[in-house]
């Protein structure tokens, strides 16, 4: 392939690389704005973001590579990132560096420079250098590195123009890069011998020097490549060389850090001992062995409480607006066909409207989570939760995915992507549906409000949250014992410096999670609302019990009766599969009585014991349709998806039976 630089071409292909949480997405968003496309890397559940931006006559096609700490083959993200650099040969690779952890961040810089010399370094978060007592001299770093270095503060959009300029200059060859070579010292002779063995072999586009290095590091992907690309004799010779070098990975890492040390000594001043920061002082308290957990509980209880307090009036307004929209539609269509008015006012508007009233809860809840994430507290929460998460066979990092699940399980399951191993991801995905999302809590809260006196409502809700959490831990424990055995992934997590959350990041964090929820409202729930309307309207001219929906209820009644539920509640549980909030709408249709509110009608129709059974069953019984769809796409397996649907059903059914029959025996029902 020709590696000549495009001089006449006006399109420049740029890849953005960097550690997680260095502001890579922020920079990508500033550069590409709305001109971006989000998808998956082929065959991987790793997000691929592409976008374009312009500078003068040049069009820059940017790819946001997944955030990685290194370019080994330990995770799908790392393989995606390095394969893109090797196989797609972008014109420029930008490595984004968080200067508050500059030494560790440069480990990735070293590894990228092992693959390509067309690199630009973006020194992000320059505003945090002072906090650590660092003095950084970008020009000196640039000289020491041999590639362009651009200081930036992405949160304030500072340095973007300079970054684009540097990219164009490197791509067009106006600026020639000559990276400082890394000397592998003790491994140099081994590498030379390996290079000699590999010379002239086809290595799937990988440079032989790099393959030699990776063989020394014991890279699994490269071992597979060897098996395909090399004959037995060559492999034997290579392995003979490798056997003489026991501590390969450590020697290579040592050489890279020595190189980093040289570069940083030339380009920055650091205090001899690290300074005590604001972060140290906060961490002393929030990660305290006794105080850590109470503080975490306090933070999340406050977040939940404020979410419901703040969103209630907004939900109320939305609810009233949809009611008015319904009336207005009915009036406007009074002269039209009755079926259309009925479809809209009894199917579509209450169905979709019912879901959209949850929008404020989800929005505000995700805003809170966004603040906790962007400020740096979430990493501490993961630390504090690590021991508890171990009980369910996961480590602290999985905690965030569970928390997001409290808003909506769809983004919750997508948030499991931060977990490194397949097994951990599967487990975190399978337990997520047991976390009651805002919609389910809405239904539960309605029942609790209808059946419990005001003084008891908060304790009952709190016990229900605790019950679901206990079920998550139990399910996680059992799944780990039965279906997902094996060694646990190591827990290694960066604890970033605390900082004021940026509006831009909050908008990003909240925005795309909200989008996942809205998509569900616009597609699945719209469809199901229409379906339920059809089932409850046909055959035309019959009473409710004779409609298809009514007949479905009679079919289900024997199963429901085991739990004390009548046919209407059974139907509500079935329609709740479409979307949990639909249960309430269904009950409203089925229990419809003149001059009576739904709460009153329910109190007449069922005992408090049966209501409690319904609450518990509805809290746990089955992931909604949208959640099932995302489980399928994230696990890429029908088998695991089926398990994820069936085991909560068994769990909820079992608990329902237990409560109903215990209550009955105690004379409560």
């Amino acid at each position, binding site marked *: 392939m020709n590696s000549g630089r495009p001089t006449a071409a006006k399109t420049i292909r740029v890849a953005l690389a960097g550690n997680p949480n260095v502001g890579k997405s922020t920079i990508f968003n500033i550069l590409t704005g709305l001109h971006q496309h989000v998808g998956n890397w082929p065959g991987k559940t790793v997000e691929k973001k592409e976008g374009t931006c312009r500078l003068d006559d040049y069009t820059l096609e940017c790819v946001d590579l997944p955030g990685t*700490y*290194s370019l*080994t083959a*330990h995770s799908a993200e790392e393989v995606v990132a390095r394969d893109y650099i090797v196989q797609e040969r972008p014109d420029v690779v930008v490595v984004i560096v968080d200067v*508050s*952890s*500059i*030494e*560790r961040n440069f*480990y*990735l810089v070293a590894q990228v420079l092992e693959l390509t010399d067309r690199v630009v370094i973006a020194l992000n978060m320059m505003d945090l250098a002072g906090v*650590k007592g660092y003095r950084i001299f970008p020009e000196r770093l640039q000289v020491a590195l041999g590639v362009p270095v651009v200081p930036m503060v992405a949160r304030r959009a500072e340095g973007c123009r300079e970054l684009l300029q540097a990219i164009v200059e490197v791509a067009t060859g106006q600026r020639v890069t000559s990276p400082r070579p890394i000397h592998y010292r003790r491994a140099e002779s081994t590498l030379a011998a390996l290079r000699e063995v590999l010379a002239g072999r086809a290595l799937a586009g990988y440079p032989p020097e790099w393959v030699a290095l990776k063989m020394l*590091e*014991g890279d699994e992907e490269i071992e597979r490549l060897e098996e395909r690309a090399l004959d037995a004799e060559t492999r034997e010779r290579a392995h003979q060389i490798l056997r003489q070098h026991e501590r*390969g*990975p*450590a020697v290579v*890492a*040592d050489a890279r*850090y020595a190189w980093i040390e040289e570069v940083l000594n030339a380009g920055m001043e*650091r205090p001899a001992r*690290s300074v005590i920061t604001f*972060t*140290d002082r906060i*961490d002393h308290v929030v*990660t305290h*062995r006794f105080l850590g957990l109470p503080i975490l509980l306090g933070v999340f209880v406050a977040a939940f409480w404020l979410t419901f307090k703040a969103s209630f009036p907004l939900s109320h307004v939305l609810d009233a607006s949809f009611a008015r929209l319904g009336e207005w539609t009915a009036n406007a269509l009074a002269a039209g066909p009755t079926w259309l008015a009925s479809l809209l006012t009894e199917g579509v508007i209450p169905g979709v409207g019912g879901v959209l009233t949850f929008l404020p809860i989800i929005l505000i809840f995700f805003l809170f989570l966004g603040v906790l994430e962007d400020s740096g507290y979430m*990493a501490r929460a*993961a*630390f504090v939760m*690590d*021991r508890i998460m171990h009980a369910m066979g996961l*480590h*602290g990092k999985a905690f965030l995915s569970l928390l997001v699940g409290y808003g909506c399980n769809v983004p919750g399951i997508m948030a499991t992507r931060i977990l490194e191993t397949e097994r951990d991801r599967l487990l975190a995905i399978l337990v997520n549906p047991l976390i009651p999302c805002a919609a389910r809590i809405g239904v539960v809260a309605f029942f609790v409000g209808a059946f419990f006196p005001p003084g008891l409502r908060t304790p009952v809700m709190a016990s229900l949250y605790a019950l679901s959490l206990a079920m998550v831990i139990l399910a996680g424990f059992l799944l780990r014992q039965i279906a997902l055995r094996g060694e*646990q992934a*190591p*827990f*290694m*997590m*960066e*604890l970033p410096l605390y900082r004021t959350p940026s509006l831009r990041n909050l908008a990003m964090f909240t925005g795309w999670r909200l989008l996942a929820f809205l998509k569900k409202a616009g597609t699945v729930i719209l469809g199901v609302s229409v379906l339920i309307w059809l089932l409850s309207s046909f055959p035309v001219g019959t009473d409710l019990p004779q409609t298809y929906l009514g007949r479905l209820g009679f079919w289900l009644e024997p199963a429901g009766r085991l739990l004390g539920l009548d046919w209407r509640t059974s139907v509500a549980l079935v329609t709740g599969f479409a979307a949990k909030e639909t249960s309430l709408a269904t009950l409203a249709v089925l229990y419809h009585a003149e001059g009576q509110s739904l709460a009153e009608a329910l109190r007449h129709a069922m005992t408090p014991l049966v209501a409690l059974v319904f609450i518990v069953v509805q809290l746990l019984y089955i992931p909604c349709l949208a959640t099932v769809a995302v489980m399928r796409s994230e696990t890429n397996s029908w088998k695991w998806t089926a398990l994820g649907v069936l085991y909560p059903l068994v769990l909820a059914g079992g608990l329902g039976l237990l409560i109903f029959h215990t209550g009955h025996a105690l004379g409560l029902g």
Partner: protein
Amino acid sequence: MITPPAAISLAQVSPGKRARVEAVQGGRGLVTRLAAFGIIPGTVVTVLGNAGAGPVILEARGSRLALGRGQAARIVVQVVAEEGSA
């Protein structure tokens, strides 16, 4: 009396102490992953939090990280004497 070995695991280092990494007892996977976080033989780390259970918080090469107890137990270290103290 047998003198206790000077090398202990990182999980046994109390908060505030500095320790030099001697070796990582684990497969290549653990070695390369720790290397990406700056932990290789020779690195001096400061233990910031160690409650005797649960993960250990430490500072390595200017960045702080939480490390699972199981992983910390596989890192052999030697506590570094504080300069100025005896």
